């Protein structure tokens, strides 16, 4: 079991995971994960394919609930509340914990309706309020100037990078506190990737961001903390700079220096 080893405990803990095991039917995917994710920081999850980092990410907003036969054991607390407690309102949880997927997935609707979708289902009806939210969210994701003249055109006509920023804007529109990003730039070209990374940098001040990435340089560039997963276990977790320059574990060192993976 690996405990977080930050020397400066200034960062407040947002998500606290203790002894989490996770199973897809009979297959165990996560083993005894314990981690304290700091608030308003970017935490990167790295590790080779199939190491469980995406599965872990999806336990945090209970997206794994949609897959039949999944089972978990252990505790996940967000703001000191157990999110797997029977009394948990999953709708409220997912409003608070937004998610951006690996492949951008705008709905086949207009740009406006994509952004307004979340606020609408959470009860915002007034057109003026919706317009305001749409503008604010698009502005926040750096897309407003590019799309303000075609808000009512299909979101599917945007470029790949724009679609991904639209998905980020859509997640921001419901005013979350945490943003989960599952390899958000892996399907994008280098320029679009730079834009996403700049955006993450900007959002850091206001949101707790957890980003899964295959790209070690990206983890180094965008994150303050990094967790290294291997075969369903959390091998090492700490400040990104330390983890990359002075890893505690041999395994981590081998991975970050590219000796395997």
């Amino acid at each position, binding site marked *: 079991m690996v405990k977080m080893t930050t020397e400066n405990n200034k960062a407040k803990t947002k998500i606290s995971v203790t002894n989490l095991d996770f199973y897809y039917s009979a297959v165990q995917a996560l083993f005894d994960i314990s981690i304290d994710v700091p608030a308003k920081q970017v935490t990167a999850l790295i590790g080779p394919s199939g190491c469980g980092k995406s599965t872990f990410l999806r336990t945090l907003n209970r997206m794994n609930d949609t897959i039949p036969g999944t089972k978990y054991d252990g505790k996940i607390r967000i703001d000191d509340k157990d999110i797997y407690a029977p009394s948990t309102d*999953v709708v409220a949880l997912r409003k608070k914990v937004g998610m951006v997927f690996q492949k951008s997935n705008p709905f086949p609707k207009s740009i406006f309706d994509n952004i307004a*979708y979340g606020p609408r289902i959470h009860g915002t009806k007034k057109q003026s309020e919706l317009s305001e939210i749409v503008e604010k969210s698009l502005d926040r994701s750096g897309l407003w100037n590019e799309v303000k003249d075609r808000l009512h055109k299909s979101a599917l006509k945007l470029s790949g990078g724009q679609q991904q920023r639209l998905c980020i804007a*859509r997640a921001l529109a419901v005013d979350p506190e945490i943003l989960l990003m599952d390899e958000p730039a892996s399907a994008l070209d280098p320029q679009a990737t730079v834009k996403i990374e700049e955006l993450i940098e900007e959002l850091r001040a206001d949101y707790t961001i957890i980003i899964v990435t295959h790209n070690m340089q990206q983890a180094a560039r965008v994150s303050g903390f990094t967790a290294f997963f291997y075969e369903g276990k959390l091998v090492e977790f700490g400040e990104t700079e330390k983890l990359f320059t002075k890893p505690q574990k041999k395994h981590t060192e081998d991975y970050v220096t590219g000796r395997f993976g």
Partner: protein
Amino acid sequence: MKKIVTKEKSIKLIMLLAASTSIFIVLLIFLFLAKEAAPFIFKPGLSELFTARWVPVSFQKESFGILPLVTGSLLVTIIATLIAVPIGVCGAIYISEVATSGERRFLKPFIELLAGIPSVVIGFFGLTVLAPLVKSAFGLQTGLNALTGALLLALMAIPTIVSISEDAIRSVPKSYKEGSLALGASRLETIWKVTTPAALPGIIAASMLGMGRVVGETMAVMMVTGNAAQITASPLESVRTMTATIAAEMGEVPFGSVHYRALFCVGIVLLLLTFTINIIAQRALKKYRDI
């Protein structure tokens, strides 16, 4: 080298022929219908068609007004569609989005089985079960009316609608659903606001195919609609559809007579009606896809 080019060209030609076969056939059918119907224009004249009486055999005056047949077909079709589309689409949503895999394995084959029942057999069911039910439910003198016909046709259209809609709904990318759920939408909201709209082109196509089956269906409607050629908007009245008229009268009509020509006119109108439904569906699809 030259040999390969010739071979490619001939293959291309064969494929072109295969692809255009259906166009030829539609044209041929239309030409054939038009040829047989054409003399009607001169005697008794096209205006005869647009009258309200269909009395093809009479000692006094025969009359070939197809309006009652057209309205009969429309009435039955509209009611059947109004019944079949909501049930079919809801069924498809249930099977693809809500049902457990066990329920799905059970439901789907049954619905497909329903599609395979011959329409005469469904007609029997209508005659012996449905018609008496409708009769007693509404306190009528006879259960052979537009409503019974429409119910029966809905029954026949539902499997088509369910089957094709379900394919459409199931092929909606999982990423759309996940995107919606991740924003805090419930399963029902996701189905209603994301999955179904995304599958709408397929659902419209399914409904149109169902409607096509309803318009063209002959045997079952002939057995249960009462076959009274009258203009009415009431589902509880007996009506006579275009298809039933052709099927019932074609066998006994003297070749080349005015009545014979009139039946071909009915055939043309029926063809035009199905074309119109198709065109409307195409328009609806195009409009939806432009968004």
